[in-house]
């Protein structure tokens, strides 16, 4: 249900093109895009800086576009499609006329239904270590270091948590303290692949 409303708003927005939005339309866009957009910001944009740097801006769409492209160029791990979604969300929420004070970045996210199912529902996944290496490099290495030997985040190679799969999944899916939640950014296969690769380290 919620999904179809989301889809409709996204399509409407696409058709409306560059035309200015009313306050109500903005709210719809924000609500529809928030779960994915906020997940991306917390997971992908927080690698280099906390999201407070994002939330304090009030920019028109073209400057959001330029900013998101600059971040991709510098190494933010987001696809073209995700970049488009982020620009729509950011320019609907953090536009020049938006109030100085807005609800915290992930308030919508916390309300939303999880976008992914629990791992158990998919049956046992078989991780592929060679794939995991690449996924780790793009998503985790900035904090956990090359070869998972540690950095801002703890060393993951030979970390006992790898043997406690439930705890590993819990931490990666939902985050913990400064560790971002990956549940909506990575597929379960991706996480299983990372896990398989970590076991080889």
């Amino acid at each position, binding site marked *: 249900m919620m999904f179809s409303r989301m889809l409709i708003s996204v399509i409407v927005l696409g058709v409306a093109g560059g035309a200015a939005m009313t306050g109500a339309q903005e709210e719809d866009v924000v609500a529809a895009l928030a779960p994915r957009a906020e997940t991306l910001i917390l997971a992908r944009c927080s690698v280099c800086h906390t999201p*407070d740097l994002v939330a*304090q801006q009030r920019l028109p769409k073209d400057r959001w576009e330029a900013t998101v492209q600059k971040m991709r160029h510098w*190494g933010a791990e987001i696809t073209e499609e995700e970049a488009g979604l982020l620009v729509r969300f950011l320019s609907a929420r953090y536009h020049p006329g938006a109030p*100085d004070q807005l609800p915290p970045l992930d308030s919508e996210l916390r309300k939303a239904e999880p976008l992914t199912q629990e791992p158990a529902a998919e049956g046992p996944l078989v991780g592929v270590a060679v794939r995991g290496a690449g996924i780790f490099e793009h998503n985790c290495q900035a904090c956990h270091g090359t070869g998972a*030997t540690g*950095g801002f985040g703890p060393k993951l190679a030979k970390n006992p948590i790898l043997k406690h799969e439930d705890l590993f999944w819990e931490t990666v899916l939902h985050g913990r303290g400064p560790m971002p939640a990956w549940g909506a950014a990575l597929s379960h296969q991706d996480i299983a692949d990372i896990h398989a690769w970590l076991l080889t380290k």
Partner: protein
Amino acid sequence: MSDSGALSRRTCFQRIAFLLGGLALWRRVQPAQAEPAGVVETGPQTVRVMRPYDAETPVREFASYLTPNHRFFVRSHFGPPEAALIAEADWRLRVGGLIEHPLELTLKDLKQFERITITAVVQCSGNGRAFHRPKVPGVQWERGAVGNAQWTGVRLRDLLAKAGVRPAAKHVQLQGADRPVVTSVPLFTRSIPLEKAVHPDTILAYEMNGRPLPLLHGAPLRVITPGWMADSCIKWLTDITVQADEAKGYYMQTAYRVPVTAIQPNSGLPGTSMVPVEAMVLKSLIASPGNGDEVGRGPVTVQGVAWSGESAITTVELSFDEGRTWEQARLVGEDEPYAWRQWQFLWKPKAAGSASILCRATDSAGQVQPQTTAWNPSGFLWNGWDRVTVTVQA
């Protein structure tokens, strides 16, 4: 790729700063927490970005001539470097490029050069960015990304003299030990023209207000270019390269530039007509009373500071009628070339209710602080009149 072994030896501070970043995130998920995202108003500093740490000094601190180290604003591009890179035993300052004798100096070697102390304002080029209209991207600094401190160190020119600068030299490139978490992000590499580098007041500082330079302020060594904005004041300095050209890369060729002539707001980047942000502009601030304070009907001491890059402050004026008439404040305290000048004014409010105090300065070059600053795409060099709004008790 960065050396992963060294990564695990990150400083304790970084770890704490990082956890604080996480804590800020975590606190935001608590439903009861309705505070504005990211802005911590109490405490020694107003935090703009948790990681890398960017925080400004509450303006009330500017009632004192020197800004204390722990309150002094912090601007980091990537945060402090790994402890190992700046530990005194291993840290070296290298001087290379267009010179006769490459140098590699320990902190002890460096301290053999003549020791000098200069009091100077250090100000982020983006201080006041939040006041530009239309709004521009970047850390939304308000009034406190500035401070006045005593810097002790050695003259850059003394080092360059020892190294022997070759005739083709025109610029001096400065590089610190700080590194981005992802290597595809450009390094914070800057350069200053040779004339500024050999100016007798340009120093490499290892002390701040009589204490060893704190980690957040660039330990063990940072550049101080008195009269210039802080984009030249490289922290955690490790490499000085004398060269024919300006530094290459994003932070010198794209960032920290302003249009030479005024441009229409939002007219895009004019490209070739952009020049590096260098000298500070004339500016003044009201330190007390503070915004939103309640004041009595009796005389109220209004006080603050004023400074100008390379000129002296001649007058500071206040207006209580939105700039129609101005009254002159009294300049007080120390009068040193690159420091700020303190001023005071005894105000007798005429009526109860809300009142706005405006402040502007004039310098020895005859410049008057403008009401607002010319718009520029990155929001640098804001120096519009300062304003504080208070309530006068009945």
